[in-house]
């Protein structure tokens, strides 16, 4: 029962954090002087197109951009009635994109799911790669296995994500005939989900997953290795060896079980940087996630669009952190329910 209560508690702290984040995001978005519409109005005035000015002025009133900042925020969140009554984020109205002249929800649409998909794949990749390699590096510490994995790990940490992406794309295409760019074959875009489409998406996912996951995987691997080494020096391991247990079974049964806890906890720390990485990599590789949308929106000061994307990215990380926290409590009975603080 208490695990449920902890989960609920964690959920509410997440909502609270999200609220603070929304204020932060809104302030950051409004930092640049002017907004999309006032820029447009100035431009239209300069070129003498008064008809356009009227439309833009109308939009300004329509989206309450002529009000003080705090009122704009309340309206955007849906805490205060706007020109058309209550209609904000919490009511499922994500706002209007001036740049694309369409509702934000329509623009982001499918790319939200693809973003989640890319990040999930990257997290999976981190686990699948870091777990065996970390254990192996610890079990065979100070041999070539250890040194090679450490070297590869360091390279993974040091190479800028976006360059790794470009290079892997190039060589992946050249030697393994992997597709370049995008998350699916162009013919499948906007089509209903079929087996063929899933397959196409999976093949397109290989390089991005690798790129986004590498630095996380190498950090995770080093952590796991250190934890395993700590555990391997303990007397119970010696006992197990003395009993004549097979090394593989001994490793997985005792030390791994203990070293596993930080492994789950860490994903919460890694997630922010991985989501960051996925935004960058998506821009470079032209994946249909919200990364490229964010970049355009930021560059053109399309405030509702960029604010929504930022909120979504924050939500994604916060959810991931929450899930990892709850999982950790499930996994490690020694942890108190009050939280991670000691």
């Amino acid at each position: 029962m208490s695990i449920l209560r902890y989960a609920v508690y964690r959920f509410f702290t997440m909502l609270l954090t999200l609220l603070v984040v929304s204020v932060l995001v809104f302030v950051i978005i409004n930092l640049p002087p002017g907004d999309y519409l006032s820029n447009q109005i100035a431009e239209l005035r300069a070129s003498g197109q008064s008809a356009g000015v009227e439309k833009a002025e109308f939009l300004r009133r329509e989206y309450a951009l002529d009000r003080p900042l705090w009122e704009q925020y309340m309206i955007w969140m849906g805490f205060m009635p706007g020109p058309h009554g209550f209609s904000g984020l919490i009511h499922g109205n994500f706002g209007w994109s001036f740049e694309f002249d369409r509702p934000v929800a329509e623009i982001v649409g499918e790319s939200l799911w693809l973003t989640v998909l890319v990040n999930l794949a990257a997290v999976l990749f981190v686990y699948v790669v870091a777990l065996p390699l970390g254990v192996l590096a610890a079990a065979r510490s100070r041999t070539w296995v250890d040194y090679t994995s450490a070297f590869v790990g360091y390279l993974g940490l040091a190479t800028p994500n976006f360059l790794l992406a470009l290079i892997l794309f190039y060589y992946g295409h050249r030697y393994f005939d992997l597709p370049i760019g995008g998350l699916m074959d162009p013919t499948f875009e906007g089509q209903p989900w079929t087996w063929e489409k899933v397959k196409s998406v999976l093949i397109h996912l290989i390089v991005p997953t690798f790129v986004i996951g590498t630095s996380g995987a190498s950090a995770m691997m080093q952590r796991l290795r250190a934890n395993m080494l700590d555990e391997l020096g303990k007397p119970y391991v010696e006992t197990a060896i003395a009993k004549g247990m097979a090394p593989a079974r001994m490793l997985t049964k005792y030390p791994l079980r203990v070293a596993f806890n930080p492994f789950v906890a860490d994903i919460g720390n890694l997630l922010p940087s991985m989501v960051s990485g996925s935004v960058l990599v998506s821009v470079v590789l032209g994946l249909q996630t919200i990364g490229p949308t964010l970049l355009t929106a930021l560059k053109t000061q399309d405030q509702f669009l960029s604010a929504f994307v930022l909120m979504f990215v924050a939500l994604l990380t916060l959810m991931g952190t929450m899930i990892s926290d709850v999982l950790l409590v499930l996994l490690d009975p020694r942890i108190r329910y009050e939280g991670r603080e000691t």
Partner: protein
Amino acid sequence: MTQLPDGRYVDDAPYDPKAALQQPERRDLDAPNWVLVWRKFKTHKLGLVSGIFLLLSYLMLPFAGFIAPYTANERNGDHLYAPPQSVNWFHEGEFVGPFVYPIVAEADMETFQWVFVEDTTTPRPLEFFCEAGDYRLAGLIPTDTHLFCAPEGATVFLWGSDRLGRDVFSRILYGAQLSLTVGLIGITVSFTLGIFFGSLAGYFGGRTDWFINRVIEILRSLPELPLWLALSAAVPSNWSPVAVFFIISVILGILDWPGLARAVRAKFLSLREEEYVRAAEMMGAGSGRVIRKHLLPNFMSHLIASATLSIPAMILGETALSFLGLGLRAPAVSWGVMLNDAQNLASIEIYPWTAIPMLPIIVVVLAFNFLGDGLRDSLDPYQQ
């Protein structure tokens, strides 16, 4: 050796009962801390080499203009995308000293590309301490003397030239000036904020602690890059490159401090209860003095090590921002700005040398990592 009457042998050498205390390993107990740290750090070969490399790189920065054969934005219209040239020593089996072969661009009418052909008949020796483009030594002294420059009628593009015919090698040297200092400014900001808030939270505890902790948690749970993007998008585009550069470094620092503050806070929580802190307080020391004189020096070295480890993230951050066109912009030269040119697959396939700036990035980031690891391991000289 003397033989005693009862037949035992005794060593004649003078015996000093205190000798054990003067053995080499005993000396360590009295040596100042930095000597111990240095002694241990020396054994960490990788860290030592990285440290020397970084030191040299930073010392090189003021003289980048002197070492570079060209200036940062000097264009060579006849040699767009020229491939890297090699410096040779022997011409037809004869020793000439360092020289280059002039390269000539020829249009390939099939692929519609410029093909550069070496003219191997006329070696042109490099000139040393010669006069070329104007620059300012250390940003102050105007001069036009370069360590080496292109001979008459030839070019010296050690690492090729880019889209506008600018020398990649020279630009990497100039780019280092910004790319390497971004991390230093950023870490200063993050260090100041981190120590300030961390010590506030750790020393005073209670409500302050709770509040600062929440802020740290929120900032840490947010993905950095989108926030960097949003903040840098807020930098007005009409600012001068230097102002943009400072703002970008400050932005990188502002989002980096929570990690450091957390470490500082944890240390403070454990050290606050020590007797010497209580003694200082009882003698009437103000909280500011206790923090600065009694607590901070305890783990300053640790903080420096962790700061070293977070500089690479800032260098990579600057690169990523500039790469996306939201960080530094031309005419400023940084490694990220240079890589902006190598953004598409076509340039990597046809002109692979435009991606060369990634090498210094990787090397510098690795060096900082190794140096940080070495420092961290050697800061506890008493620990075996």
